[in-house]
């Protein structure tokens, strides 16, 4: 249970980091290390080189771009920073709500947004949010900076579209109007455990507050990549915002296919998915109908 030997690099600039990644064979980037360090300790990962980006300038932070209506989050921004950011609590409360489910406050003090996305655990909360949010991920290399839509980012189990010389540097999250509905629902056997299934919901009402202008529903825990419940979104978009509609939309989760295991068979995960989507839609609708001061941890 000790890390294997590796060559350690701690560059100070993005440029130096990208040069290292382009020159080194078998290099692994470490950010918060809350997934990679356990894998090193258990020797599930044995990289030849560890490139530590904790001392790289300019990779952490939250930037608001009003003309484009996006919030840009630096890849090395700590999860705890997002969780406690007052502007995000007001303008994009789905993010802090989702992050409060990740591990424990001690791991969120280290864990980063980019690290979680690049690790792409099948049940990761931030993966669900990035999917529902239709986030754009920016991957930099010595060759170029590339924008990757979240829908194209997952490539398989713990596998992303990033190439070995690319560094995830930031994500852009498109903003929703003030007072929009949102909810993050998760089922885990113990608080802080990996989710069996989790659902992220965003919802916007029309001006009459009777119909749903648009909504997004994403699920994790059903397979290696997040799943957008587009059929439910299509059913709800433009329709009357009542509980029957929400129930019908949530029931569509049963038609998805899930990868099960001994602990949670596929059928059980789909039952959880329906329940969590129903709860999420109800809570998001309630919040959109009666916008209140967001709960801050």
């Amino acid at each position, binding site marked *: *249970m*000790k*890390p*294997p*030997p*590796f*060559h*350690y690099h*701690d560059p100070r600039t993005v440029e130096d980091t990208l040069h290292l990644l382009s020159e080194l064979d078998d290099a692994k980037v470490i950010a918060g*290390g*809350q997934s990679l*360090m*356990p894998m*090193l*300790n*258990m020797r599930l990962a044995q990289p030849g080189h*560890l490139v*530590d980006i*904790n001392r790289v300038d300019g*990779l*952490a*932070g939250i930037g608001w771009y009003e003309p484009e209506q996006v919030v840009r989050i*630096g890849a*090395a*921004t*700590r999860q*705890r*920073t997002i*969780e*406690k*950011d*007052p502007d995000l609590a007001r303008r994009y409360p789905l993010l802090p709500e989702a992050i409060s489910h990740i*591990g*424990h*406050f*001690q*791991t*969120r*003090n*280290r864990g980063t947004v980019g690290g979680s996305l690049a690790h792409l655990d099948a049940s990761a909360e931030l993966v669900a949010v990035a999917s529902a949010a239709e986030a754009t991920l920016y991957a930099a290399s010595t060759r170029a900076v590339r924008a990757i839509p979240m829908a194209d980012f997952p490539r398989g189990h713990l596998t992303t579209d990033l190439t070995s010389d690319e560094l995830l540097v930031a994500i852009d999250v498109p903003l929703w109007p003030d007072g929009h509905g949102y909810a993050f629902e998760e089922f885990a056997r*113990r*608080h*802080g455990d990996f989710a069996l299934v989790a659902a992220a919901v965003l919802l916007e009402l029309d001006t009459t507050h009777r119909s749903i202008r648009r909504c997004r529903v994403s699920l994790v825990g059903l397979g290696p990549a997040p799943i957008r419940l587009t059929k439910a979104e299509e059913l709800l978009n433009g329709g009357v915002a009542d509980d029957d509609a929400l129930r019908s939309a949530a029931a569509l989760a049963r038609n998805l296919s899930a990868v099960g295991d001994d602990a949670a068979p596929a059928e059980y995960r789909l039952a959880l998915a329906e329940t969590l989507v129903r709860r999420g839609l109800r809570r998001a609708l309630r919040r959109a109908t009666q916008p209140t001061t967001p709960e801050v941890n």
Partner: protein
Amino acid sequence: MATTRQIDCTVNGEPVTATVETRLTLADFLRDQLTLTGTHLGCEHGVCGACTVHVDGAAVRGCLMLAVQVDGSAVRTVEGLSDGDALSPLQQAFRENHALQCGFCTPGVLMSMQSFLDEHTNPTANDVTEALSGNLCRCTGYAAVVAATLQTARDGVEHHDQSPTSGGNGS
């Protein structure tokens, strides 16, 4: 490939300069090189919380950081809570509430609860329970720990050099 680095940091306020293997975890550095064996190692993958220490004011898992990563940082361990033989208010409350039995998890629990109290002056039992969820105890149970933490909060939280910040430990 025995790569080593020299690091400079403070541990419980004392300056430390040491040569460490780059693959050495912070917890092993504290235990094996500095003989600060109060920091315990249970699971070594971030689940049990026994190795919880403070780095620049934030509670972290000592098993999930490398020693080289605390170069330039201020580290606080369970040995840094008391003032000599005088227990800290939290430690005294643990004693009064029988909040430990075998004591294996206690250093991590203390460091988590101290960090929590640094940021929350008027917590509810639910808040404490939530904050305690990242530390596993296998004998005493949690009720006495919650009682001790609430008592410490009521009696007035010990104030530290780090004021409660809203941004975690940033980058």
